[in-house]
């Protein structure tokens, strides 16, 4: 059975990833999860400067989901390199892809983060966060305009030959148009989807629960949105699509693969079951065996 897949110039050992923002910098999960079973770890978003993030409350549970407005709180590129990457070296040598999720407020910011990481072997490739709904400048602003997506992608492309994955926002009119712009700019893959913008109001206190007012909705509640987006995007571009949104088990992941995704990321469920990624990897193989699939490509070809 063939579980590995190519993205750009490199290979992922299996299609199972853990989504940015739900897995810290990997080390947080070391005691609770066999990290080697994971195909790709997408780190907490990294920006050029450290970011404090938003005031609290930053999270609230919703029906079969949650809103978060963390605000890209992160240690910044320098401390990421000195404090977080050394732990991941060993994992990278065992072929778990270490993929920093890169964030910024200007095109130059994004390019500079990539430039600083480029010589480091531990880094497999980059996922570009053009779609965070929780910061005031940048991010989502880039991700909603095809012209800007193509421009920033082509600029980043000049700094690296490693896989460049653009993370797409569902908070747009036509997600396929954004995906095409990313492909046009030279992206090697798109991940699909980031969170949906949402709000919860406390009717007793008569106030908005999150300090940021709105947050990004994730969890099983958004799975049908993610599956539909993957179905649409995978038919609009020829680069691989990485499915994200509400995957809680192998069966959920199979929906994405049948919809056309070549790989997938588990997000919010990592909070509930820290060892879910390994379980999904094992259960996916069982599903493929039971259903006569020898590769992800065969699964992609089922639905026309």
């Amino acid at each position, binding site marked *: 059975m063939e579980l590995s897949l190519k993205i750009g110039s490199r290979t992922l050992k299996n299609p199972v990833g853990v989504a940015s923002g739900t897995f810290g910098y990997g080390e947080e999960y070391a005691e609770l999860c066999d990290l080697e079973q994971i195909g790709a770890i997408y780190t907490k978003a990294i920006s050029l400067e450290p970011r404090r993030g938003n005031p609290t409350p930053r999270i609230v549970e919703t029906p079969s989901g949650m809103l*978060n407005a963390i605000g890209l709180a992160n240690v910044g590129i320098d401390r990421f390199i000195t404090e977080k990457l050394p732990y991941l070296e060993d994992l990278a040598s065992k072929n778990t892809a270490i993929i920093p999720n890169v964030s910024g407020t200007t095109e130059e910011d994004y390019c500079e983060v990539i430039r600083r990481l480029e010589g480091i072997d531990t880094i497999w490739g980059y996922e570009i966060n053009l779609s965070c709904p929780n910061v005031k400048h940048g991010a989502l602003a880039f991700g909603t305009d095809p012209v800007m997506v193509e421009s920033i992608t082509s600029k980043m492309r000049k700094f690296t030959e490693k896989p460049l994955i653009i993370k797409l926002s569902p908070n747009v009119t036509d997600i396929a148009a954004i995906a095409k712009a990313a492909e046009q700019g030279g992206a090697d893959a798109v991940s699909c989807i980031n969170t949906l913008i949402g709000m919860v109001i406390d009717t007793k206190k008569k106030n908005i629960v999150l300090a940021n007012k709105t947050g990004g909705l994730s969890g099983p509640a958004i799975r049908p949105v993610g599956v539909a987006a993957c179905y649409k995007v995978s038919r609009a571009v020829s680069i691989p699509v990485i499915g994200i949104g509400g995957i809680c088990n192998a069966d959920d992941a199979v929906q994405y693969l049948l919809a056309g995704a070549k790989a997938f990321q588990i997000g919010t469920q990592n909070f509930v079951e820290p060892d879910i990624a390994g379980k999904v990897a094992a259960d996916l193989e069982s599903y493929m065996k039971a259903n006569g699939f020898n590769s992800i490509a065969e699964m992609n070809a089922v639905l026309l």
Partner: protein
Amino acid sequence: MKTVTTQVVENRKISPDFFELTFSWETAWGVPVPGNFLELKVNDLTAPMLRRPFAFSAFDELNQTASMIYQVRGTSTQLLTEKKAGDSIKIIAPLGNGFTIDTDSPIIAVAGGVGLGPILFAAKEASKAGKKVTFVTGFRSTELVPDRSLWENLDAVLCTDNGSEGFAGNVVQYLSTLPESQIKESVIISCGPTPMLRACHFFAEQNGIDCEVSMEELMACGIGACMGCVCETKTESGLARVCKEGPIFKSEVIKWN
């Protein structure tokens, strides 16, 4: 820290809205210390989706059980009341840091409302270790006071806000009645509503003594990954994760608004 599926031993109602849940807990999974918490998933459904954090209220090494005291507040805790002996629950624990109870100073252990659990645990462990402990617990009124046998072997003071039982007033008002000589040689540990923790901090500061508080924030992962549960601190970064750097903090580190 371990992820385990374990069994309920007892789920006992101890007040109109408090329960004490006791469950199997093996030493090999990690020995909980006072202040540590657990993340509990009440069922396998997607709603409620997230685990809920609860502080340990006891660990019985001999019987290999642990306990927590919870208040019925929302869907998860309502569902939890239906758990019976033998039912399965999923737990990640022990999480977070603990109270400093290995101290030469006498300890004033202050609990407000459902903050009772971890303070009871700390007070009992410290007493067992031969420390001098004054246990102070407060509730709104006598009807809400849980099973008083929980603190029967402690030097305990019960406060009610409306004066219907014990000391009339809140726990911090009680602290103010203690002789200055006793206060000055003591340290405070506390868990309860934020206004109470803030009052404990300023009381300790005025008296020049150490105070530790157990902070509470909405949590998703409980293991330091999601950055959801931060509180404002006077440290360089200005923020700390309640689940990882806490939940126990020196009160002087917290930025009290």
